[in-house]
Each structure stands twice: as structure tokens, then as C-alpha cells.
């Protein structure tokens, strides 16, 4: 078994069934396809998979989401992929758009939009109605975002080339905001190892205090800006793909302490998912009891990537 110094040292007490967690990081990772409800094709994804005699799995019956066998490139090179029938996405990352509980016609902001998995998911939920603002400062990532929005036929979206903190919108402009912030991406380390990716070096798996502190600072700036842009009565979802409480519960705690009209609410997805509550204590730090309303998703419970979701209402 591979040595995971970062996880072993920091999260042994935090993550339940820790040895199962470690071994889950080295198990094959399922390829997930989320069906695009805006597709123009005369058949659905399940019909296609049946026609192909594909040995697929539908982990949550309430979702049009299917786990399929590899290799991954076959699904990326499929004509139906290019015609916008589906988006390849991890199950965990569906939770953030679903947690927003959007209605078609809303005014919605996706703060850190690229590469567009969650953005296109939001468009699908909105049925291309209302307005979706997607912002991404990096040119190359914006190109990928545009490509995905075009491929999945999303036409209610405007893309802005700004950092979330610098968005030129008036305060209280949006009904709903998704802040899937920049993070240390610990939850995706499983993906990297399974794909044999060279993207992350081993030493990246060690804790780098300066890197984490700069991320934390940016996350704080983004959540403060999100609060300002959110209308009264609006919903804000904060999510990351990391396990680090400094990037999760601590950011949420900061927002709750700074903005008295912001409160956490339960995440209602409309189906059962094996999630763990947010932590109320870690490394000598205490967080409020409401933190248990936030959700931690672990790979050994839902066979996907690690994820964290918190849902706020501005009263």
C-alpha cells in the first residue's frame, strides 16, 4: 500500500474508518457520466448504454447519473459526448449544484466556474431559463469552460473574465451563489493515483503551511464577496474537494461570525447519500454545533472523490 503521510498524520482522528479510507484511495475509480437534460438527441443516456450492452451502474436512482467501465478515453471520444449527451463527472461534485435547490428563472452566480462541470449542471437544472453568471480569471480554463457550455447547449450563461473577488456586480444581485472555491484538492488525490497522473509530485502530499494559508485567505475573500453579492433570502453553497478543516469548517465559521444574518441550513438532496457531518472540533479548534449541518463526503462511503458542502441562507 502506498504511503500517505499527509492523510496519516493529519486525518487519522478526523476521518471515520481511517484504514478503509486509505485503502479506498487505491481502488479503481468509477467513470461517472451525468446526463445532460438539454441534449438534442432523440434518446437518453440509459437507452444508449443499454443499446451498447454496457455493464453500467446507477448509484442513485433519483439521478440521471451512471457509472461505466473504462477506459476513460473511449467515453471522451464518443460522438454522443461531443453532441452533449453527457458530462464526465465525479458523483461527489454533483452535490454542490443539487444543494442549491435552484428554480428555473433564478439569477445565479457560479464563482469559480471552470472547467464547467457544475456550471453545465446548473444550466440543466435551470432548464436554460433565468441567468447564470460564470466567472473564471484564467484564460485557458475559460476556454475549456466555453467549450463545455457550447457542447452541452447552455445559452443562459454569461462568462466574465474576473477573479470572484473582483466581479463588477452590485451588492445583492443574485438569488443563488455557488462558491466551489480553490482548494488543496486532497479529495482528488485518489483520481490522480489511479490515473497514474504525474501532475502531483509525492512531496505535494505533504502539508505546506504557506500554501494552505494563502488558499485560506483567498477562500475567506471569496466567501465575503459572495455574501455581499447575495440577495436577502438567497442561498449560498460553499464547497471544496478537500478534507482540510482549515479550508472547510474554518471558512464557514468565519462567515457565520462575521455576518450575523447568514445561517447554515440542512442540505436536502431528495435522496439518501452516505455523508458525514462537518466536524465541530479539530486540532484544538472548536467550531459551532451547527457545523454538523454541513456535509463531508468520503471516498470509502460513496466510492467517489472527497468533497465538502455547506449551505447558507441570508436572512
Amino acid at each position: 500500500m502506498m504511503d500517505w503521510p499527509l492523510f496519516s498524520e493529519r486525518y487519522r482522528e478526523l476521518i471515520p474508518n481511517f484504514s478503509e479510507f486509505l485503502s479506498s484511495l487505491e481502488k479503481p475509480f468509477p467513470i461517472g457520466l451525468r446526463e445532460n437534460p438539454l441534449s438534442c438527441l432523440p434518446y437518453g443516456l440509459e437507452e444508449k448504454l443499454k443499446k451498447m450492452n454496457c455493464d453500467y451502474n446507477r448509484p442513485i436512482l433519483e439521478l440521471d447519473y451512471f457509472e461505466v467501465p473504462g477506459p476513460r478515453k473511449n467515453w471522451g471520444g464518443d460522438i454522443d459526448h461531443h453532441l452533449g449527451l453527457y458530462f464526465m463527472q465525479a458523483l461527489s461534485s454533483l452535490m454542490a449544484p443539487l444543494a442549491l435547490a435552484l428554480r428555473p428563472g433564478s439569477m445565479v452566480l457560479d464563482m469559480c466556474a471552470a472547467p464547467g462541470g457544475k456550471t453545465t449542471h446548473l444550466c440543466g437544472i435551470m432548464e436554460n431559463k433565468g441567468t447564470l453568471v460564470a466567472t473564471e480569471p484564467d484564460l485557458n480554463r475559460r476556454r475549456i469552460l466555453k467549450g463545455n457550455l457550447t457542447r452541452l447547449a447552455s445559452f443562459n450563461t454569461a462568462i466574465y473574465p474576473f477573479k470572484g473577488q473582483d466581479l463588477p456586480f452590485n451588492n445583492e444581485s443574485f438569488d443563488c451563489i455557488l462558491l466551489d472555491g480553490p482548494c488543496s484538492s486532497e479529495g482528488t488525490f485518489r483520481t490522480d493515483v489511479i490515473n497514474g497522473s504525474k501532475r502531483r509530485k509525492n512531496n505535494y502530499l505533504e502539508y505546506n503551511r504557506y500554501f494552505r494559508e494563502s488558499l485560506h485567505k483567498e477562500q475567506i475573500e471569496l466567501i465575503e464577496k459572495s455574501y455581499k453579492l447575495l440577495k436577502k433570502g438567497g442561498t449560498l453553497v460553499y464547497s471544496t474537494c478537500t478534507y482540510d478543516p482549515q479550508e472547510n469548517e474554518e471558512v464557514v465559521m468565519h462567515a457565520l461570525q462575521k455576518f450575523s444574518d447568514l445561517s447554515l441550513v440542512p442540505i436536502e438532496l431528495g435522496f439518501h447519500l452516505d455523508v458525514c457531518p462537518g466536524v465541530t472540533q479539530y486540532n484544538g479548534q472548536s467550531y459551532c454545533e451547527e457545523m454538523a449541518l454541513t456535509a463531508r463526503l468520503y471516498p470509502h462511503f460513496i466510492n467517489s472523490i472527497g468533497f465538502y458542502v455547506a449551505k447558507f441562507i441570508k436572512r
Partner: protein
Amino acid sequence: MLPNLLNDNEFQLIQNYCFDRYGIEKEVWIYYSLYKRKEGLWLVNKGIENQIDLSQAESFGLRILSGKNYPYKITRSFVQVFLKHMSKGLIEVTSAQAESLLKRETIQIEAGPNFQKGYYVCLYQEKFVAIALRTQDAFVSQVPKSLTGQLSNNLKFSE
């Protein structure tokens, strides 16, 4: 650069073109606005300009028609949005022809005098495959090079 919203006359021209050429009823357009921008026409939800400042947006909506002037060329996004409303400008191809089109090859189809020149939407078993340009006696694939490169080598259609 400020986006350029089509005025009523220009919008009507597009509506008429799409009705004559592709059988798209004019009522379909009541939910949309069209902008002229970057050598094409972009479709967005009607009223988006009242909600946000589009002048600072890098892009918005979908480019449904490309080209500098009328008559425009339809795009894959056009098909994605309007295929369910189209009753004309469609041709059914065989599996071999579908494969050829996706390889950017020109195909021959027995076309009577009713086939006018212009852009057609090619379907295989009702499924959109490609856009093709009808010339004198052939249909020229309009599939972009970038897409051909991304498709699997073992692309096959079964009858």
C-alpha cells in the same frame, strides 16, 4: 466591445430565413434574443440584457449562426437548440455516409431538383450526425477538424 442586439427588422429576417429553410415556426423565437458579435449571431434568453451588464462579459449564449452577413451558416449549437422544431433542411444518411461525414469527407446523395443549395442537417436514425453543405452534386461535410481529431478511431455506426 459592446454587443449588438438585433433590431426588429434584422430579427424578422432571421425568423423568415429559418422558417423558409428549416421550417422553424416564428413563435419559437419569442423566448430568445439575438446578438451580432464576432462574425456570427448569438442566442441568449430574452431579457438577459436587463439583468446583467453584458458589455463586461467575455462571452454569452450560443453562436447559432456564423458568417459576417446574411445568409448565415447554421452551427452545431443551432441544431442542438432547434432540432426539435425543424421540419425542413434535414436529410437521412446511411451508416457509411455518417462515418464519412464525421471524417470530413464529401458524400454523394441522390438528390432531386427539390434539393436547393445550402446547409443541411444530416441525421442517422433520427440522430444528428453532422452539418453538410449541398453543392452541385454532393454534400460537403462541415465537421470541424478539431472534432474529427477528438473522436475515437473506432467510430462505427451499425445498421
